C-alpha cells in the first residue's frame, strides 16, 4: 500500500486494486447505460442535470454508493459480526413486509417504496445479510461444519430467503442463493453432496430432453444391471443393493413426479417455457397450474425467445472489433428488451465486439481471482466465509447473466453486477464488496 496509507486509518490495509476495479466497473456500467439511452436529439447536459435519463440516475446512485462505501470503510469491522443475526432477521421481516406494502414492478411484488420515488428490493439486501449470518454461523467455535446437522442449519438459513423470493415471483434472485455453495464447499461441505446435486441436475436436464418413458426404462435397466452385477460377484451386501434401489426410486420419482411437478406447479408458465425453449422444445402452458390460476388474461406478447434472439443478434453483430461507440444498430433501435438492466452486456458486445467482451470478461475474472486471494488471506473464518459468499454471489450473477444473454442459460432476471442499471442492485454489490474490504483491512484480527 502507499506510504500515506500508513498514517491514514481510513485506507490502511484496504485493497486498492479491488477499489480500482470497482470504479472501472461502475464507469463501464454508466457508459453502457449511456449507449442504450443515447438520443442524439437530447442535449446531454440538460438531461443529465435533470436526472431524467437512466444514466444520469445511475450516476447519482453511484455517488450515493460512494458515500455508503466510505461509511462502511469507516465503521468498526466488529459491527458486522455483531449485527449479523439481527440484520438477517430484519431482512426476512422486510421481505415478508413486501407481501403487505409491496409495490408491483415488472410483475414482481418485491419492492418497498421509499422516499423520492425510489424503491427498495429487500431480497437484494438479504443477500448481504445471509452472507453475514452464514459467516457468523460457520465461524462459531461450537459449529463443526463437517457434520450434517450444520449443513442442514446452513441450508435452512440460505433457502429461507430463497423461498420468499420465489413467492415474490423473483426466480432469478432465488437462484442466487445457491451461490453460497461456494462458501460452504470451501468450509468443508463434502463433495458427495455436490456430486449428488450435480447428478440431480443432470437427471432433471435428461428428463427434459428425453421422453419420460424412455428415461424410466433406461434408469431401471441401469439399476438392474448394477444389482445383477453385484449378485454375480457374490457381493451380496444387502446395504449396497438397498442403496442402488433407493437411488433408483429417487431417480424414478424425479423423472416421473418431481420434475413435472416443479414445472407445472412451482415455475410460472413463462419460466417453464423459457427453460423448454433453451433445449428447443415447446412447453404446453395449459399444464401449468400456477399460471392458470394467477394470469388468466393472455397478452399478445412477442415470442418467448425474442429476447434471446435479439440479444444474440446484438452481440453477434458486434463481430471482432465491434460496431463502434454509439453505432450499434440493435442498441440504437431498441431491439433488445430490458437492455439497460438485465441485457446490458449486449450493448457492450455490439459496440466493442469480441475485443470488448473478452477484455471485460478478463477484467471480471481478475476481479474474482483477486477476491479469492483476499478470502484465502483471512485469518478469521468469519471473514473467509463472508469473502467466499461474495465471490459466489458475484460469480453467479456474472455467469448466469452473461450466459443468458448469449443463449447458454434460460432467461432469468439477474442483473450484471456493477454494470446493470438499478440503484438497489448497485447498492447491494457495493455494500457486499466494501464490507469485505473493511473486513480485509482488519485481516490480522480474529473476528467471531
Amino acid at each position, binding site marked *: 500500500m502507499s506510504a500515506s496509507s500508513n498514517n491514514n486509518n481510513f485506507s490502511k490495509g484496504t485493497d486498492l486494486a479491488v477499489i480500482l476495479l470497482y470504479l472501472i466497473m461502475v464507469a463501464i456500467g454508466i457508459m453502457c447505460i449511456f449507449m442504450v439511452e443515447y438520443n442524439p436529439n437530447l442535449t446531454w447536459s440538460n438531461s443529465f442535470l435533470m436526472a431524467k435519463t437512466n444514466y444520469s440516475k445511475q450516476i447519482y446512485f453511484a455517488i450515493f454508493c460512494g458515500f455508503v462505501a466510505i461509511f462502511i470503510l469507516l465503521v468498526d469491522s466488529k459491527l458486522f459480526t455483531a449485527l449479523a443475526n439481527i440484520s438477517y432477521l430484519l431482512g426476512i421481516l422486510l421481505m415478508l413486509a413486501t407481501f403487505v406494502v409491496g409495490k408491483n414492478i415488472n410483475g414482481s411484488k418485491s419492492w418497498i417504496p421509499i422516499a423520492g420515488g425510489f424503491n427498495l428490493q429487500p431480497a437484494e439486501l438479504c443477500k448481504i445479510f445471509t452472507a453475514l449470518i452464514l459467516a457468523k454461523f460457520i465461524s462459531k467455535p461450537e459449529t463443526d461444519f463437517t457434520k450434517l446437522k450444520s449443513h442442514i442449519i446452513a441450508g435452512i438459513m440460505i433457502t429461507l430467503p430463497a423461498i420468499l423470493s420465489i413467492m415474490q415471483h423473483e426466480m432469478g434472485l432465488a437462484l442466487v442463493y445457491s451461490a453460497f455453495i461456494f462458501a460452504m464447499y*470451501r468450509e468443508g461441505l463434502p463433495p458427495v453432496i455436490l456430486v449428488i446435486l450435480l447428478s440431480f441436475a443432470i437427471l432433471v436436464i435428461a428428463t427434459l430432453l428425453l421422453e419420460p418413458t424412455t428415461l424410466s426404462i433406461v434408469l431401471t435397466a441401469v439399476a438392474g444391471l448394477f444389482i445383477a452385477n453385484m449378485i454375480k460377484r457374490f457381493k451380496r451386501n444387502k446395504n449396497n443393493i438397498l442403496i442402488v434401489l433407493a437411488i433408483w426410486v429417487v431417480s424414478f420419482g424425479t423423472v416421473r413426479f418431481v420434475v413435472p411437478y416443479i414445472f407445472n406447479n412451482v415455475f410460472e408458465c413463462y419460466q417453464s417455457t423459457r427453460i423448454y425453449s433453451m433445449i428447443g422444445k415447446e412447453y404446453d402452458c395449459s399444464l401449468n397450474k400456477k399460471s392458470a390460476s394467477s394470469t388468466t388474461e393472455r397478452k399478445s406478447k412477442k415470442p418467448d425467445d425474442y429476447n434471446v434472439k435479439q440479444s444474440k443478434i446484438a452481440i453477434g453483430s458486434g463481430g471482432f472489433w465491434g460496431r463502434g461507440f454509439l453505432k450499434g444498430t440493435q442498441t440504437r433501435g431498441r431491439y433488445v428488451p430490458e437492455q439497460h438492466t438485465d441485457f446490458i452486456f449486449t450493448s457492450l*458486445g455490439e459496440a466493442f465486439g469480441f475485443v470488448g*467482451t473478452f477484455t471485460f470478461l478478463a477484467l471480471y475474472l481478475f476481479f474474482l481471482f483477486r477476491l479469492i486471494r483476499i478470502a484465502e488471506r483471512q485469518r478469521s473464518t468469519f471473514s473467509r466465509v463472508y469473502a467466499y459468499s461474495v465471490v459466489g454471489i458475484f*460469480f453467479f450473477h456474472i455467469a448466469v447473466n452473461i450466459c443468458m444473454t448469449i*443463449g447458454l442459460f434460460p432467461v432469468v432476471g439477474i442483473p450484471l453486477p456493477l454494470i446493470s442499471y438499478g440503484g438497489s442492485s448497485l447498492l447491494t454489490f457495493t455494500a457486499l464488496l466494501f464490507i469485505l474490504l473493511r473486513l480485509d483491512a482488519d485481516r490480522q484480527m480474529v473476528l467471531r
Partner: protein
Amino acid sequence: MSMYNSNRGGIIQIIIGIIFILITVQLISLQIFSSKYVLAANNNAIFRKIIYPDRGIIYDRKKRALLENTISYDLVVIPNEAKGVDTTTLCEILKIDKEEYKKRMVEVIIKNSRVKSGIFEAFLSAELYAQLTENLYRFPGFSLSERSIRSYPYNTAAHVLGYVAEVDVNFLEKHGEEGYEMGDYAGMTGLEKQYESILMGQRGVKRFLRDNKGKIQGPFEKGQFDTVAVAGRNLFTSMDVEVQQLAEKLLQHKIGSVVALNPKTGSVIAMASSPGYNPNLLTGNQRRKTIGRLLTDTARPIYNRAIKGQYPPGSTFKPMGALIALDEGLITPSFGYNCFGLYTSCGDPRKCEHHNAGHAANLQLALANSCNSYFLQVFRMAIDNPKYHNAKQGYLKWKQYMNSFGLGRKLGIDLPSENKANIPDTAQYNKDFGGAKYWNSCYMLTLGIGQDRMTATPLQLANAMAFIANKGYYYTPHFIDSIEEEDEIDKKLLQNFRTKQEVTKIPTEYFDIIKEGMHDVTVYGTAAFIKVPGHEFCAKTGTAQNPHGKNHSLFVCFAPKDNPKIAVAVIVENAGFGATWAGPIAGLVMEKYLNDTLTKESKTKVDYLSNIDLMPEAIKAWYIRNNKTEMLSPIEYNNDELADVWDMEMLSESTPIKTKIDTIKKLDTAAPPAKPLAPPTKNKKIKEQALNPKLKKKKIKSKINNVSI
C-alpha cells in the same frame, strides 16, 4: 479446519475459470464465426429504400417523345407490420374478398419475405388512390409507393419500343451482377431491352435506421453509404412519329410490315408490323389482361415481322440478281433475252407475265417489265459462271454477293432477336439432291426470281434498297442515332452504326443502270400508277408465292431518284399483287416523309387503304371460333373484288393477258396445279384452303410455279 480445505480455493478458481472459458467459446462462435448476426442486425435496423430514377425517354427526329414517364401508385405492404388491419374496409375499397386478401398476403411473403415491403395492389387508379390515402391510418403496415411508369403519347411503335415488365427469377439469374431485385422493372423487348443499361440510369439507395417498432429514426450513419439515383439517359432516333403512325394505319386489318430507312445514315424512319397493339395497354393495370390476349392471338401481334418475318422476296430480288451478273461481267446493260412468255431452258417451263416481243430487250426494259425469263437466265449464268469451275463454286460466289448485300445474315440492328432469314447453303442442296455433283443451276432456278428457299426480312429488303440507292454501300440499320451525354462506351456501342459498310466494289455505273430500270418501273412498268407528288422514285414490285396461301404483296423503293432520302420495303401477307397493296402503302409513306404532308387525294387513299381488310380467312375464322370478334374490322370487304379494281387501274394494258395465262397453264402439264395467279377467288374458297391442312401440305410440297411481276 480451514487448513484441510485450503486446496478447495484452487478448485473454486478452476470452476470459475472453466465457466469463463465456456462463455468465451460461445462469444467466439457468436462474434467471430457467425456472420448471420450482422445480417440479422442489418435486416432489423437498416431500412433500405431504393430510389428509382426516371427511365430515359426516346425521341423521334423532331424531338417528339415516343415514350415518356408518368407517375403511378402502388399499395405496398410489410407483412410483419400488417397487424390490426381493418381488412373489411380494405377489401371493400379494393373490391376483393378476404380469401383474396390472404392469398395476396402469402404471395407477398413468398416474394419478398415478411420484413420487406411487397406490392399488394399495383397501379392504383386515381379514385382508388384517393380512397386509400384517406383510410391509410386504418391499415398499419400498408403504404402507398410512387412509381414511374411508361406512357406512349402517340400510341405508336409498340414493337420497336418494346415494353418494361417486372423481372422474374430467370431474369435475376441472368443479370445477377447488375443489382436487380425482385419487384424491379426492366426492359423486356425492343429498344427498352436493347438499351436497358442506358435507359435505366442508376438506382439510388437510401439507408435509414429504424427502431423496434419500425419507426424511421433518421438516416443511417448520416447517409454516408447512400447513393444518389442518376436518371436514365435519353435516346435520339431518326424515326418520324407521323410516318410511323401512317404506316401503322395503312397496315390496319392486314398482316404485314413496313420498314423505312434513311439510306444516307441507315437510321430507321419507320418500322411497323401488323397486327400490332397499343403500347399503352401494356403499362399499368391493363397489362395482365392485355398480355394474355396478345400472347394467345393466332396472328401474333407481339411478333415484330419487320425483323423476324421471313418472306420470299420474289421479284424485288431482281435488281440484285442483275447487279451480280453485271459485276461478274456476265452481261452488259444491253444484254437482252428473247422472252415469249415462257422460260424453257431447264425443261420444266417457267411462266413470264409478258409475252410481247422485246419486253426484255435490254436490262432496263427487263427490270421495268419484271421479265422472269430474263432473270432466270441471268441467275443461271451466274451459277454456271465459267470463271468458277462448277455450279457449287458459282453458287458460293453468288451467295457471297447475297450476304454482302445484307441478305441471309443478321444486319445487326439495335433490336433484340433479329432474324437472319435464309439464303440457302450449298449443304442444303447437297443434302436435297444427294451430293454436290448432282445439282446445277436448274435445280434452284427460281432463286433467280427471289423464290425457292430464299427468304428475307422486310428490314433486309429495305436495307438492300438503301444499298442500291447509295450505289454500293449502306449503314447498318439502326434506331438510335445518339445518346444523351454520350461517353466513350456509348460511342463504342454506336460505332458500328456510324461506319460505312462498303462490302462490294461494284462500279457505280452498274447501279445507275439498275436505278434507271427501277425508275422505269414507276414510269411505265409494274408500278406506273403509283406517284409521289413532286418526286421521282425508283421501285420494284414483288408478288411472292408462298406455302401459306395467297401470294404475298411486296414493294421496295427509294426516293427521290437522284438524291435518295428514304428507302422503303412493304410486305402485305397473302394479299396478292405487289403493286396492288404494298405499292400504294410505300408510295404514301414516301410522300409523307418527303413532303411532310399528304395531298388531299392521298389522304382519301389513306382512308380507303386503311379500311381495307386483307386478313387471311383462316385468321378471321380463328377469331370467330375464339369469340374475339372485336379484333375483326367492322366492315366486311370483298377483297378480291377490290383487288380487281386496283388491278384494272394498274395493269390496264395487260388485262387481256389473263386469258393467255390460262392457256399457258394448260400447256404447263409438268407442274402440279398451282394456285391460279389472278383469277378472282371467293373468300369461301380461300377459307377452305386455309383450313384444310391436307391442301396446305400439298401446296408446300408442290414445286413453286414461277409467278412474278
